[in-house]
């Protein structure tokens, strides 16, 4: 089997079990379920919540450099700490947190393959004990919104230029415009259903196997290249608020090694409500 383009960004549960007491490794649990960590977590893991810790409380944006430095310092993370993210929902929120860490250039950030599901399924140790770590000094650069993040106007330009690929990672019903939410999820307040023109639909969870680990490089390549999302293109992924698409961003950038991939975190909640923004809708009723 061929290797992933950057195999170092994935660690297996065995590796994590062997590094539970490694002072240079910090385990970070990121879940959709706010209290899952409190029900039990991997010994030594801290919790980072995508709302409370990563989002600005007022502006729809992420924390700024000072806030990120404070978050790192208070959790005992140094610039050279190896940060291992894991979480529920196939690591969906773990990849989101990793993406935010990369906006601030944290060098060594990795994902535990299979996430919380695999760790629990293997019957590994869990605890309710919340660890505390000595305060560190963390120096972050200003947040880099240019390299791996896309904004609405850039997406608008993107759909009119050749050599780009736009990946809508939501479900087929969201893509077609039949729904503005995930199957089994209630309706939400997006004014229009559909997708951004030129986008192809590759639901994010197609990148993982039943045991929540990532599919093989060959399978992933076939999945994305089969729909024209090839490494030579400038790729933007999006979903509803940029969380599911951070998972696809991670797959394309690190597992397949695409050089130019950005995540459009405004996603459908911005585009579907945006004044003057074109959409395509394939569901007609």
């Amino acid at each position, binding site marked *: 089997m061929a290797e992933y383009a950057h195999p170092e960004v994935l660690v297996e549960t065995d590796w994590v079990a062997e590094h539970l007491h490694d002072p240079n490794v910090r385990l970070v649990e990121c879940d959709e379920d*706010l*209290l899952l960590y409190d029900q039990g977590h991997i010994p030594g893991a801290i919790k980072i919540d995508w709302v*409370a810790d990563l989002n600005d409380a007022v502006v729809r944006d992420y924390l700024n450099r000072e806030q990120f430095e404070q978050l790192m310092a208070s959790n005992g993370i140094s610039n050279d700490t190896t940060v291992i993210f894991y979480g529920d929902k196939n690591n969906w929120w773990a990849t989101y947190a990793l993406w935010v860490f990369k906006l601030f250039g944290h060098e060594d950030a990795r994902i535990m393959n299979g996430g919380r599901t695999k760790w629990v399924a293997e019957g590994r140790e869990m605890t309710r004990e919340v660890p505390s770590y000595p305060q560190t000094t963390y120096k972050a650069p200003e947040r880099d919104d240019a390299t791996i993040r896309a904004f609405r106007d850039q997406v608008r330009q993107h759909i009119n230029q050749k050599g780009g690929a736009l990946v809508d990672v939501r479900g087929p019903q969201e893509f077609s415009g039949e729904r503005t939410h995930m199957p*089994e999820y*209630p309706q*939400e307040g997006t004014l229009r259903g559909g997708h951004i023109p030129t986008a192809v639909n590759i639901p994010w969870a197609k990148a993982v196997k039943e045991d929540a680990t990532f599919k093989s490089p060959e399978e992933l390549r076939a999945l994305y290249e089969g729909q024209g999302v090839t490494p030579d293109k400038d790729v933007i992924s999006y979903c509803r608020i940029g969380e599911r698409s951070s998972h696809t961003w991670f797959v394309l950038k690190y597992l397949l090694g695409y050089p130019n991939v950005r995540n459009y975190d405004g996603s459908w909640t911005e585009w579907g409500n945006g004044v003057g923004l074109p959409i395509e809708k394939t569901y007609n009723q």
Partner: protein
Amino acid sequence: MDRQEAIEYLLEHYENPRNNGPMEDADVTMPGGNPGCGDVVTLYVKLNEAGDHVDRVTFEGQGCTISQAAASILTEMVEGKPLSEIDEMDFNDMIDELGREVVSNRPRCATLALGTLKAAIAKYRNDQVRADLAQS
């Protein structure tokens, strides 16, 4: 209730849900769901004979810890309450009951069950009006 007490309160209800399951003789059944979180609850409401008090509420649901714990807590809170008191129940009251410091970042999860209960009562009243009109 401090933060840790609130967490323990919620986890205890999540792990040992009260009034959990369908109710065959419910007067009204109301599904509810939460955008962006994937939580769903269905409430089964039984009223007293006069139709002005809650006799009993049960729930079924799936989703995050807060949404399911809140549903369990709510079923205990409203047992025997007059409908007028439920009308007066504020979403902020529910957040305070659950522990504001813990649940304030997930307000929709925290208030899903209460919103669904209010919708159930509204449905019951509408059904009563329709029934009265049909008879007159």
